[in-house]
């Protein structure tokens, strides 16, 4: 195993929508490397389907302030309103930028960018659903990812493809923590690459592989948050994790909310449109946390379908077949491929699926990482996209607001990193900064323990899906933490089969599991402490929102002794006062 050294002004870790948008901003201004464990076009942004909201008002009256109101309300008043204002205002330019970059949006008859309805997005503060989501059929994320990658090709951005970052290096020589480098592992050779750099922006995406039923890719293992957490960077609001109502039964593959935006209806085993009972105004287009809970309740109360009565239906059979082919081609294909059913004639069996991390690396609106509850900025460290928590999504993200988040805050993060590094000097890297990674690799390769990485991961996924998902209680969370603690012990006693250097995914999966375990632990501890129900965090034993005690963000730290410690910080308030969330 060889060690190589590189020097850059700025490094971006991750090449999904957030990383690529940042790269477009940084490359050309300062010497930049983009390090990504997947080829950029393999990133999970490409899986996003439904759309990206912006109040363009191309098809009906709309204002960014309405979008901001919906986002605040959708967040169950845990979103920071300064950040939400910025996101919703800059959304309009972000969409126009993408169009100028060549994005193949679906168009109106007049040739403008078309817009459609999406859950939780309303006109005039909740009156009725509004057409706000800009889209490209049901492959909006694919088009965004391709477009951003194309622009990076045009700009000759310097990619290190299939390089996996394993560590970050801080310098504390002047008494203040500052980024000085990252250590990456080259999958094709097993070589180690040390990148000396003045700035690092993490854009590593989510960690949905913590759950058994998930819409997330196998590679979404929370590497960025995980490795920063170990370096004493706190994680914000991890307990707020979104379960999307409509995952394909048994697979978890997503069927976009666009299906309901186009008129699809949820039905229980009796054919009843149960969302009419739960959210009389917006019905099937209520926010995801509410719909996921409603499905959970149908199943719990015996109105689920199938031999185990454990799913409900997404019904598209009443939609014109041409509309399905034009607007929902991919997701209807998924139903055909994986369940062998024809959505034009049969309703699709669905169940909630683990989907999106509202929490993550705490940042401000410039993408700078905040290291504590006093707002201390870590110099040179940035984060954007799903791995970051700005927080624009609070306790529950609205559909289409993540594609928006990644382009708006990817751009902002890139911009502020470029500014910072062009005014800062390089710090000399200490010799041997890669030693910790080398030690961990050789420890895993030489370990002879009895446990298998895949067994531990499977058990983690099961306990998280059973005990820490749509509905939680003190007992279920206790069960989860007991299992996680045991699994962490077992993780210290593993072995892997592959001892080689070349494309050793056995080793990589072992590294990734470490992050999933650490983040799951902090997630559950945060959920245990939060004795209220807000957004995606629903406690059956505390079924109301408690603004007096809990309108605050969780910050979880991993202390030197390995224990998780919680702190809290205030929500940034604004124009919209908390009120009851009814739809």
């Amino acid at each position: 195993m060889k060690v190589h050294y590189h020097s850059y002004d700025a490094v971006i870790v991750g090449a999904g929508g957030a990383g690529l948008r940042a790269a477009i901003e940084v490359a050309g201004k300062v010497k930049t490397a983009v390090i990504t464990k997947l080829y950029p076009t393999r990133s999970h942004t490409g899986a996003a389907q439904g759309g990206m909201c912006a109040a363009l008002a191309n098809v009906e009256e709309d204002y960014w302030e309405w979008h901001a109101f919906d986002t605040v309300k959708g967040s169950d008043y845990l979103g920071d309103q300064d950040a939400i204002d910025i996101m919703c205002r800059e959304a309009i330019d972000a969409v126009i930028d993408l169009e100028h970059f060549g994005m193949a949006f679906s168009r109106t008859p007049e040739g403008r960018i078309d817009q459609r309805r999406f859950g939780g997005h309303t006109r005039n503060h909740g009156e009725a659903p509004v057409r706000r989501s800009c889209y490209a059929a049901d492959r909006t994320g694919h088009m965004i990812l391709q477009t951003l990658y194309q622009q990076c090709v045009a700009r000759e951005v310097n990619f290190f493809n299939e390089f996996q970052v394993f560590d970050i290096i801080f310098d504390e020589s002047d008494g203040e923590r500052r980024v000085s480098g990252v250590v990456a592992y080259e999958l094709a050779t097993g070589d180690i690459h040390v990148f000396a750099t003045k700035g690092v922006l993490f854009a590593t995406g989510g960690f949905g592989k913590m759950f058994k039923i998930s819409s997330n890719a196998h590679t979404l293992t929370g590497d960025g948050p995980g490795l920063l957490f170990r370096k004493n960077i706190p994680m914000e609001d991890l307990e707020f994790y979104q379960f999307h109502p409509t995952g394909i039964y048994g697979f978890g593959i997503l069927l976009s909310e666009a299906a309901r935006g186009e008129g699809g209806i949820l039905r229980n085993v009796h054919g009843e449109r149960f969302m009419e009972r739960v959210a009389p105004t917006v019905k099937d287009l209520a926010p995801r946390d509410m719909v996921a809970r409603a499905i959970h309740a149908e199943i719990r109360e015996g109105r689920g379908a199938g031999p185990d009565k454990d799913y409900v239906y997404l019904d598209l059979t009443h939609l014109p077949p041409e509309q399905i082919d034009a607007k929902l081609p991919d997701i209807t294909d998924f139903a055909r491929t994986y369940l062998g059913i024809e959505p034009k004639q049969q309703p699709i069996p669905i169940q909630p699926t683990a989907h999106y991390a509202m929490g993550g690396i705490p940042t401000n609106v410039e993408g700078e990482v905040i290291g504590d509850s006093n707002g201390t900025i870590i110099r040179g460290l940035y984060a954007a996209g799903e791995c970051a928590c700005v927080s624009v999504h609070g306790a529950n993200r609205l559909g289409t607001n993540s594609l928006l988040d990644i382009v708006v805050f990817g751009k902002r993060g890139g911009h502020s990193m470029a500014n910072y590094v062009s005014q800062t000097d390089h710090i000399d890297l200490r010799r041997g900064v890669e030693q910790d990674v080398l030690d961990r690799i050789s420890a895993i390769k030489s370990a002879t323990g009895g446990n298998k990485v895949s067994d531990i991961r499977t058990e983690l996924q099961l306990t998280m899906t059973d005990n820490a998902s749509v509905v939680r209680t003190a007992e279920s969370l206790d069960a989860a933490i007991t299992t996680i603690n045991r699994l962490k012990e077992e993780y210290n006693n593993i072995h892997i089969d592959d001892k080689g250097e070349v494309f050793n995914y056995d080793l990589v999966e072992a590294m990734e599991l470490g992050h999933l375990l650490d983040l799951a632990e902090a997630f559950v501890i945060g959920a245990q402490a939060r004795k209220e129900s807000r957004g995606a965090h629903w406690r059956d034993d505390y079924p109301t929102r408690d603004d007096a005690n809990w309108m605050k963000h969780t910050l979880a730290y991993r202390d030197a002794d390995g224990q998780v410690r919680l702190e809290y910080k205030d929500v940034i308030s604004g124009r919209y006062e908390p009120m009851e969330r009814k739809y």
Partner: protein
Amino acid sequence: MTMDKSPQIDSHEKEVKVTLRIKRYNPEVDTRPRFQVYEVMLKPGDRVLDALHAVKWKLDGTLSFRRSCAHGVCGSDAMVINGENKLACVNLIRNVGTDLTIEPIRGLPVIKDLVVDMEPFFAQYRSVLPYLIANDDPGYKERLQSQDDRERYDDTTKCILCACCTTSCPVYWANDEYVGPAAIVNAHRFIFDSRDQAASERLDILNQKSGVWRCRTSFNCTEACPRGISVTKTIEEVKRAILYDRV
């Protein structure tokens, strides 16, 4: 709605024995590729990708293959499954059978097991200027594009760069200078986009000896494309655009 036609999905489907013959090559020990046989139990509704995971996670962790999304949108897991280029994650055991021979895609250098070197493929992609080139300044507004103009290039926007097409092309196997169908698809994406102004530059590139004229219209690529893109038709349209100087 009547619930008569509602599908019942059986989560207790019985497992069946699946035999995988996998072409393996580890550059650190093997001098040449070899086949290794594994048997795993799976449900008929499981994916070929699940079969590979069952091997890797239960029997032999040294097996290497790429994968990410697991539902046919990222393009990571193109491989030769019973002789045909396919994505492992969109093919169910029920449809491909319980006797599987799995090999790496052909025409790109094998690095380890099912992992091939994708760099030549992406270099060919980059060579066709695969990005919008438009020099007018649209100001702070979107460019307009009619629904018909948008539809004109819709098919080729679906490409996920999986390489199933290019690595099923006999011409590409014989001569890796040929840019290959995937690169042509991605050139077509912009040549026929009404907003783009560099069609003639791309057509010049594809008119060279490594370009479209190498294609022998054998349709392998079209059959292989998991996104259902009419790849050969796309190539024909580019040829016609070169001949008649018209897009």
